[in-house]
């Protein structure tokens, strides 16, 4: 037996050594086997055909007309006002989510009350509910004939409402697991040293939640600027008033102006990619701190 695996050393089986130079400490089959290489090949081809090539073609089509046309498509006054509205509303919704999402995560982890599990499940509804249905349900409470006597349909409030709805789960679901894992003794140490609850929260808990809150905020912002379905019925898509970027892209597609649609889509992809990079950096930083 040439295997160094201590767990198997007592068993006298005539099997060839599993693979050279794979100590227990490393313990993983890191290099690609022929089967895995084939699998990787298929996965990469699939991923390229489905995601990478189409998105690359969007960017290619967007910049094909040269920088002037690209810039003209992005700075069209109606497009600029859509970008302003979408980014503005998404930033506000993200700010609300940072505060409210952290509070909801806190309540879900630290508080105990009847109906908490219902609250917990409800948080996921905006994630699972079809976006067009989200628009419809919000319209029935906040649109014409509202039981509250409100009617925000076709206003900028409606855009904010829809984006707040669809982005609700992100901060809650990134903060919640971190809050669950927090060590109680750090907080006890802080309070035994005389820190008030508020100080402990601000100086001990909040810093450890910071990466999770940032990650949730990044996801929430990305989702906000890309939102389309929930706004269709709710916002009326009024040019220069309630029209968001996704709707601009769709209008260009429907008018057959794929170059302008691609130019705006390229801008949105750049934002989506930067969010991915932010998340990757946060994840790596947290992983390094843990190890």
């Amino acid at each position, binding site marked *: 037996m040439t*295997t160094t*695996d201590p767990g*198997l050393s007592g068993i006298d*089986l005539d099997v060839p050594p599993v693979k050279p130079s794979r100590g227990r400490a490393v*313990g*993983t*089959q*890191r290099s*690609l*086997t022929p089967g*895995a290489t084939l699998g*990787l090949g*298929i*996965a*990469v081809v699939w*991923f390229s055909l*489905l995601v990478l090539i*189409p*998105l690359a073609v*969007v960017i290619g089509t967007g910049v094909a007309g040269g920088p002037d046309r690209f810039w003209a498509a992005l700075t069209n006054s109606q497009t600029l006002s859509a970008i302003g509205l979408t980014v503005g509303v998404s930033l506000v919704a993200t700010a609300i989510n940072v505060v409210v999402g952290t*509070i*909801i995560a806190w309540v*879900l982890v630290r*508080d105990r*009350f009847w*109906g908490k599990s219902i609250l917990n*499940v*409800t*948080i996921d*509804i*905006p994630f*699972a*509910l*079809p*976006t*067009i*249905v989200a628009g*419809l*349900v919000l319209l*029935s*409470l906040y649109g014409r004939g509202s039981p509250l006597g409100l009617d925000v349909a076709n206003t900028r409030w409606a855009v904010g409402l829809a984006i707040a709805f669809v982005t609700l789960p992100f901060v809650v679901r990134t903060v919640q697991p971190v809050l669950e894992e927090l060590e109680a003794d750090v*907080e006890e140490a*802080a309070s035994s040293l005389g820190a008030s609850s508020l100080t*402990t929260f601000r100086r001990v808990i909040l810093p450890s939640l910071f990466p999770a809150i940032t990650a949730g905020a990044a996801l929430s912002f*990305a989702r906000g*600027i*890309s939102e*389309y379905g929930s706004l*269709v*019925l709710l916002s009326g898509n009024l040019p220069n008033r309630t029209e968001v970027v996704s709707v601009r*892209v769709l209008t260009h*597609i429907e008018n057959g102006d*794929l170059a302008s*649609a691609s130019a705006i889509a390229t801008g*949105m*992809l750049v934002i989506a990619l930067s969010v*991915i*990079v932010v*998340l*990757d950096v946060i994840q790596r930083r947290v992983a390094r701190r843990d190890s």
Partner: protein
Amino acid sequence: MIREPVLVRWGLRAFAIAYVVMLVLWPVGLVVTHTFADGFGNVIQALSDPVVIAALALTAQVTVWSVMLNLFFGVGISLLLVRYDFWGKRALSALVDLPLSVSPVVVGLALMLVYNRNAPVGGFLYSIGYQIIFSTPGMILATVFVALPLVVREVVPVLTEIGDEQEQAGRSLGANGWQVFSRITLPGIKWAVVYGVVLALARSLGEFGAVKVVSGNIALRTQTATLVVEETYQNFEQGTAYTVALILTFAAVLCITVVSILRPKEKQT
């Protein structure tokens, strides 16, 4: 563990509940009351409309394909990302999340640019008899795209956590790749795969923007349930819109409830 003052705790609890009720629970509840506002009339009318039935059937078909493809590739990509080292792994790992933050409209546009009849790839496929855009395959592609990260995101952490010592042991005892996967790896990641599939199912049933762009929205042929909700609402057939919305809501709530019931089970085993 710090204990906030009672008043603060009640305040936070009331605020959290009020926010979620006003934003989510109450509006979603209204779908039920609107659907049954005049008894079962809306439901009967909607379900006897061939356009609605065709749309529900098409949604089911697209969802089944999308979930199967995502199950296969999701588990495969997760295994590769966790168990192997290769060039470009970090990029693949980050890019797998990309569909979560790309606008559905951009997804639709991207697929349309590549797979329409006049594009090189789409033209080739059309010449051998496969129409992708304005047809079911395009809608399946769009749906797979948006649900792609869900299985991977569920399976990767579990696969990392269970480690591969048992797989190593199995392999050293002479099990082949398939035996190791089906007898050791799969039972370990079973629940993660189930969550991923259920989440992908919910997402696939409800996809709207991407499908709208690639489908052409032709009644009886390429109109899914979500597209029917939009069209019927805008045509003032609100009873039908609410009924289809209720069916979709029911499916979505069922999916997340199943996940939330299954989740604690995993911790016990």
